[in-house]
């Protein structure tokens, strides 16, 4: 009975986290399309519900009721597994995101490593989908995305080391609390820029959406998918984008901290600040999608390995020597 109580308690907590995340994924898809439309002087989805807010839910319903087509020459088990993997990985990472000092599902010691590990596993959904489709375009998309995501993970890892040098802990709440006086975006601004661009590449967003480049590869790894399975890829992708925004907000924008520790700001609870910061970053993601043309593949690789990796490595040396010289290294 005791175990059952714990189980129900945990399930309740998980549902209370995942349902808002899924709903906000739906809203964020709408926001993305609206921003995209406004930049191009269009209206965007504005018919279903107030301001078109229910458009994504209508789309999701449509996908659920469509037929799922599994290609006869595909590898069926892996073909079905791929969208499930994408969706699951995009959702389990939210377990460690701190919404305030106490509101976190799993306050683990190695929170940032967990986030990094889960985001680096995200590539499997794409590779599995691309390979199992047994078709040329999806396979090309999968190969591209494998190379792309592995490359940009390296620079994200090095950027995380920069932040960890300033914090002295791998716990996400400790990272947020360390920014009480100064958000890391100010001393580590170049790293924030590189993190943002690498996050674009990691989530296959334009201008790095080569895995699904519609002009060359039809839709890359998603070509053979239909119905609910396509919707799962699509929602998983946006959940991943939100996750990268949350990671950026926690690493550089002070997580759930208010911008200033003075009266009117301190009234607003932490989770709202975190959501506002995530939305700000997402707005940047959406704007970039609207205004930047797609990179060529060799340019993408050159940028990852020859620009971002050396730059972030040099910055690690710089941060470490600065902290060491001025005796600012966090010791506990």
């Amino acid at each position, binding site marked *: 009975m005791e175990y059952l109580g714990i189980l129900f308690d945990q399930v309740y907590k998980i549902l209370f986290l995942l349902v808002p995340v899924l709903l906000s994924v739906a809203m964020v898809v709408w926001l993305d399309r609206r921003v995209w439309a406004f930049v191009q002087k269009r209206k965007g989805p504005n018919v279903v519900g107030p301001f078109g807010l229910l458009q994504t839910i209508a789309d999701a319903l449509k996908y659920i009721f469509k037929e799922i087509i599994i290609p006869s020459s595909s590898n069926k088990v892996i073909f079905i597994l791929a969208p499930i993997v994408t969706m699951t990985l995009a959702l389990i990472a939210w377990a460690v995101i701190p919404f305030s000092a106490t509101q976190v599902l799993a306050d683990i010691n*190695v929170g940032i490593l967990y986030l990094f590990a889960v985001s680096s596993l995200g*590539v*499997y959904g794409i*590779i599995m989908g691309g390979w199992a489709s047994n078709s040329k375009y999806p396979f090309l998309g999968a190969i591209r995305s494998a190379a792309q*995501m592995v490359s940009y993970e390296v620079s994200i890892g090095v950027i995380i080391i920069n932040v960890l040098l300033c914090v002295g802990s*791998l716990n996400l709440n400790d990272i947020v609390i360390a920014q009480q006086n100064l958000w890391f975006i100010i001393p580590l601004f170049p790293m924030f820029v590189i993190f943002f661009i690498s996050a674009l590449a990691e989530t296959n967003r334009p201008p790095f959406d080569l895995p699904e480049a519609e002009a060359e590869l039809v839709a890359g790894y998603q070509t053979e998918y239909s119905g609910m399975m396509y919707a799962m890829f699509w929602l998983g992708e946006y959940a991943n984008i939100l996750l990268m925004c949350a990671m950026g907000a926690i690493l550089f924008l002070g997580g759930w901290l208010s911008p200033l520790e003075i009266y009117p700001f301190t009234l607003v609870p932490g989770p709202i600040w975190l959501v506002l910061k995530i939305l700000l970053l997402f707005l940047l993601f959406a704007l970039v999608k609207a205004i930047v043309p797609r990179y060529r593949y060799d340019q993408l690789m050159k940028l990852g390995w020859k620009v971002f990796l050396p730059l972030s490595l040099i910055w690690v040396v710089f941060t470490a020597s600065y902290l060491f010289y001025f005796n600012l290294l966090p010791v506990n």
Partner: protein
Amino acid sequence: MIAHSIFFYTFSFIAIISAVMVTVSKNTVHSVFFLILDFISISCLFIMIGAEFLGMIMLIVYVGAVAVLFLFVVMMLNVAQQRNQWFASESSSKHIPVGLIISTLIFVELIIVIGGWKYKPDLFDINNSSQLAKVSNTHSLGQVLYTDYIHVFQISGMILLVAMIGAIVLTFRKREGVKTQSYISQISRERSDGVSVLKVESKKGVKIDD
């Protein structure tokens, strides 16, 4: 405790079964996927014994990077077809003894290394362990790795660096006649480099040298 042992047996069962499936499964891509499942369940086991840092690093390095490259290569090669031909051909019987000798050598080396390994005595000191429990996993690893084992740590890092450079040198070849685009020269191109305005006399035309 019951929940703990249920999780332990689940993960170890998955780890062993998938390790067997890596060698047994016919399709090479499937065996890589089983290898990934094996890595994941082993990192879960690491987390269960409290080595959370090791578990996460295992996930990041092996599952997130190494296995992706494995998969990458195996998918490109269409190995399933090649393997069947290879087993049918004569050359397989020549290679099997060599493989056996090499694997026996590596196994013996592993036994020698592990058998002769000396742990730092105060790591197992009971009085010390209560003090260690206060420090997080990552901190205590760093404290051991960067103090007592710094030379071993640095040497292994150097070996990895040498291996990396060696791999690059072995596979690098300079090919002639490859057309590449330098985006710096593309961006720095001016209008005057490409366009020139000429006065064309009527019924005579112009001659353009290029």
